Structures are given as C-alpha cells and as structure tokens.
C-alpha cells in the first residue's frame, strides 16, 4: 500500500477556477486522480474540466464527501480555506499555497490539532502515490511505482531525487512534500512513521535542509523506531550563516539547524547521508 492517498481517494480542489488550480486539476485528472469537486466562492454552478464547482466546502461535501482537499487559493485567504475544510471534517488537507503569513498558520494549526485532521504543507508540492493517485503539482512522469517512500521539505529538490531514483529503476510507494515553511502540518517524524508502518515501503528517503529541528527530531525517531533502511540528504551545506535562503524556514542561527548538525544527527543513528542529491539512488539501492 501507499500512504495517505491511493487510487480510491476522492479529491476536492479548493481554488479550482484559478490559473494554478485549473491547470493542475487537469494534470491530476490525466494522472488518474479522482477529482470529484471544486470550491470557489461565487463560482458555484460552473465546472472545470468536467468537475462541478461549489460556493462552499459544505456544499461540496453534501454533493459527495471528499477524502482529501487540495488548496490552491491565494495566500491571503488560504488560512480561511483550510479552516473551512477542517470544520467540514475533511480528513486530509494538502496546502500548495506559499507565502501564507506565519500567524495565520498558527491559527490553522490550533484548529487542525483540535480536530484531528491531517494537514500537509503549506508551501509544499503535495504528494503522489505513483501509478495510483497524485494530489499536487509535481511533474508526474518522473515517478514510478516501487518500494521507496520519499519525504521532503523541498519541492524541486525532491523532483531531482525522484528522477534519479526512477532513472536507477527504483520506484516509489509515495512521495510526500511536507513543505518549506517555518510551521507545517505534518513533520518528518509523522511521515517517516507512516512509511515505517506501510507494508509496501521497504526503504525511506528523507530530504531535509538547513533551519529548524525537524530533521534532528526525525533522526531521533528513526534511531528508536525505524528498522527500514533510510537514506538522508541535507541541502544548504554551503549557505552562509544568518542569511535567509528563500524558505522562511531555512535560517541558520548558531549551531542549531545547521547542515552539519543535521547530517551528524542522521549519521549517528545509522542513516546514510548523500553528498549530492543524485547519489541518493545508489545509496538506497545498496540498502534495499
């Protein structure tokens, strides 16, 4: 089995009439994803690539209950969109939108934590279970079904790694982009836990970057609970200290969150760490 989504997952697209929303709805449909509805206030009654559009999530839920929502709305209204989905009890919410004010995300996390739904992102590429379903914006042709679970804070860097895996003939159960923001709904630990518990996943790739403590916590978790082989990669070894590198999350302050700290944390628990992204394929291949 894949984690989180599979061929049966019914998907609702929040912001389906927008430029990105409609473009990726079409790509998801082409991949075989079961997109059942879209929501845009004021556009209820329209349709996008054959998908009916509703004014509110509650109306979309009444039409047919989705298993998963994917959010493409602008940053200024993204928190409200997620809160609407949480209130309607949609169990899995993938937020692609980037640039959401961080206090909006704290507000969202309070509701998410209280309700027990799962949020992935924001500012993430989404996820794909190759050959089954894709809920996100990653180029689908680079993926193939197989035994490796991939989890990453980055978007394009993940594509790089996945391409290398696929080129080496190593397929993926699920690839999850957890997002690059300072506060995110699903952590490395939670994703790795799901892969550990997934029967089909035989190896795990963790792609981190400087900033925060998510990779260190993940290393600790792996040391205690994960018996599947894990390969890691940390981006930003040569980033100068105290500079922001695009992601609000990628800030190095002192030793916490530095590339060295993260690489050591991984290596201490026996995780092989690749030096360049494309080396990951060979490392995981040796361990499977």
């Amino acid at each position: 089995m894949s984690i989180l989504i599979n061929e049966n997952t019914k998907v609702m697209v929040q912001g389906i009439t927008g430029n990105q929303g409609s473009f990726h709805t079409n790509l998801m449909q082409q991949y075989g994803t079961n997109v059942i509805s879209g929501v845009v206030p004021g556009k209820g009654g329209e349709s996008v690539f054959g998908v009916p559009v509703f004014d509110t999530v509650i109306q979309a839920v009444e039409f047919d209950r989705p298993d998963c929502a994917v959010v493409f709305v602008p940053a200024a209204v993204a928190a409200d969109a997620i809160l609407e989905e949480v209130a309607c009890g949609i169990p899995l919410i993938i937020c692609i939108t980037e640039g959401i004010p961080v206090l909006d995300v704290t507000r969202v996390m309070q509701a998410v934590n209280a309700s027990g739904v799962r949020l992935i992102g924001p500012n993430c590429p989404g996820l794909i279970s190759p050959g089954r379903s894709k809920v996100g914006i990653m180029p689908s042709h680079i993926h193939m079904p197989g035994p490796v679970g991939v989890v990453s804070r980055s978007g394009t860097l993940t594509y790089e790694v996945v391409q290398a895996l696929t080129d080496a003939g190593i397929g993926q159960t699920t690839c999850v982009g957890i997002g690059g923001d300072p506060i995110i709904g699903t952590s490395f630990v939670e994703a790795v836990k799901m892969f550990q518990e997934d029967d089909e996943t035989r190896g795990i790739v963790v792609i981190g970057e400087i900033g925060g403590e998510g990779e260190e916590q993940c290393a600790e978790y792996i040391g205690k609970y994960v018996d599947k082989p894990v390969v890691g990669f940390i981006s930003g070894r040569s980033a100068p200290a105290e500079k922001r590198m695009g992601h609000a999350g990628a800030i190095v302050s002192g030793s916490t969150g530095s590339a060295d700290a993260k690489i050591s944390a991984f290596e201490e628990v026996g995780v092989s760490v690749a030096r360049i992204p494309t080396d990951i394929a060979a490392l995981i291949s040796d361990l499977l």
Partner: protein
Amino acid sequence: MKLHEHQARKLLSEFSIPVPRGIVASSVDEAISAFHELGGPVVVKAQVLSGGRGKAGGVVLANNEAAVESAAKNILRLEIGGYSVKRLLITDACEISKEIYLSALIDRNAGAIAVMASSKGGMDIEEVALQSPELIMRRHVDYATGLPQFMARELGFELGLDWDQVKEFQSIASNLVELLKQVDASLVEINPLIVDGEGHCRAIDAKIDLDDNAMGRHPELENLRNPEEYTREEIEARNAGISYIKLDGNIGCMVNGAGLAMALLDVIKGEGGEPANFLDVGGGADSVQVRTAMNIILSDPTVRVILINIFGGITRCDEVANGVIEALGSISKDVDLVVRLVGTNEDEGLSLLKTAGISAHSSMVEAVKQAVELAS
C-alpha cells in the same frame, strides 16, 4: 523585515508598553540638542539592524554635553554587524535595579506563539541561552486567546517581581503578544525590560522582525522598511517575488525552489566553483519573473557564467524558456549561459530554447560541471 530600535519602541508605545523618552539624531549636533531637550543624563545608542551593539561600543552613557558629543562622534564612525551607523537614538538614562529578558515569537517547533522570559536579561542573554537554558522560561500561547493574565502573572512572580511590578509586567507581556499579532511580527523582543529606580517596569531596548508574507495586509507598516536591510538587487528581486542573496563567486545561479537552489550551491562548491548568488525564482514563475531574475544576475559585474537549473513542477518550462530568451535579447555583456531544464512542459520549453539556438542539459551535475569549467 527588521525594524530599528527607534521604530520598534514607537510600536511598543502604541501598545502601551512604557519606554523612556527618546529622540532620533543623525548627526553630532542633533545628538547634542537632543541631550539638551531631554535635560538629564542620556544614553547614546547606535541604530543598526544588528545585535551586539553594546559589545561593539554602540551604546554609551553620557552625563554632559561633552560626553554626548564624544559618544555621538565615536558611534557615528562605527560599523556594527556590517552596517555603518547612520542614526543615533538619544534616550533618558534610567536607574536599573533589575534587568529582565522578555520576548514573544513564533515557535516553529510548537507551531504556536511562544513567550520567553528570563531574570537574566541584558547583553549576555545569548550566553545564558546556551549555558543555562533552564533560566529562560517559555510559555506557549493560543493565537486566538492571546496571553492569559494568569500566565503573565506566573512569569512575573517567577521573575522575582513584587506584586505591584507583576501587575505592570502582566500588562506589558499581554500587550507584547497583542503587538506581535496586530503587526504580524515573527519576533518582538524587549531586552532588557528593566525595573527602574522607582520600581517601575520599562522597555529599554526593543527588537522587532515583521513577517514579510503578511505585509500585504499592513500597508501602514511598509514605510518602516529600511533600505539598508537589503541591497538594491535584493529589493528589486523581492518586488518581483524572487529570493536573491548576493554571494562572492562568479557563477550566477537561477533556480526554482529554495531547497534545489541551496543544493545547487552545494554541488557548485563540491565541483570547485564559486556561486555568485542564491536565487529562487519561486514557484510558478512566469516569463516576466524569469526575465527579471536574469537581469538581476546580469547586473552583478562579477558574474562570468549564468547557470539556470529548473525542475518544473508548478513552474512551467515553456515560461522559463520564454523569459530566458527575452532576457538574452538585451544582453550586452560577455557571459556564458548554461541551462538545465526539465519537468512540467519540458518538451515545449526545450523546443523554444532550441529555436533560439540554446542547448540544455538534463542533468544538474553535468550542467554544474560545464558552468564551473566555463567560469574558471
């Protein structure tokens, strides 16, 4: 977006947090007249967007005109944390019977607002944080609720304040959290918050970082932006939705995605090259953004090679190709171009490039190797 102390203390005042009187001065003469206006011992403080001012000699107590003159003169000559001092803040000097550290910030691990407080406030708080983290109290706060009175009270008593001071502290701490929320700050720090000679709490120094993502809903804060925080190119980039940071090498980089951009820097260094910049055109960049990014890279005179590394997801390769081609049309400089372009709409992008006579790599490492070779 970082604020100067004098801007931060103005926001504190607006949220009813007491600060000593203060006047901003840009010259020695202005500093002296500020001293006379305040009419008592003053502190002369460098206004720079950097910590460590005290240790760098940027904060000086002055009791008379001569002392103010000499302090202002000296400080205006300093460079602190890479910033030359352009402005001073002259404030009333306060008698200090206790120095407290107090801040409200976004705790990324907890996904919530945190309030931190320590009775070991002052210049050495970083040292305290490293050596004795248990001396820094931390409380998490619900966004919607703000800081409950009882929680502020707990902190106040724990800081060793008496009941009258705790009441002042309660209001200061609650207002600090309210300020963080109202202006969308990621950090609001008072260090030190002092108890003065009469037993009252006052904020002596303040630091505020605002969340750039939220500035769209705070047009009134936009004029607090300090041009020295970023270079002209960084500002131009930001306005186009691009992250750009100048580095020291000669390979100009354009990448989509911060993680991939950082990885590219790592690979360049690994191959013996030196990147000239970090540049993330962002997710879903269109041809206009790509052209702007190209122009920013080209405006750096040290750039010898432009290395474009795009793995399209939400970004479409055809948009990137169009932007690159448009920018190339106006190049008047002798630079080499190395392109690596894969992902969404890859075929369309490659065919556009081919028409324009540009070849492209499919492997990042190959592209880096070529760029390093051309740059050396």
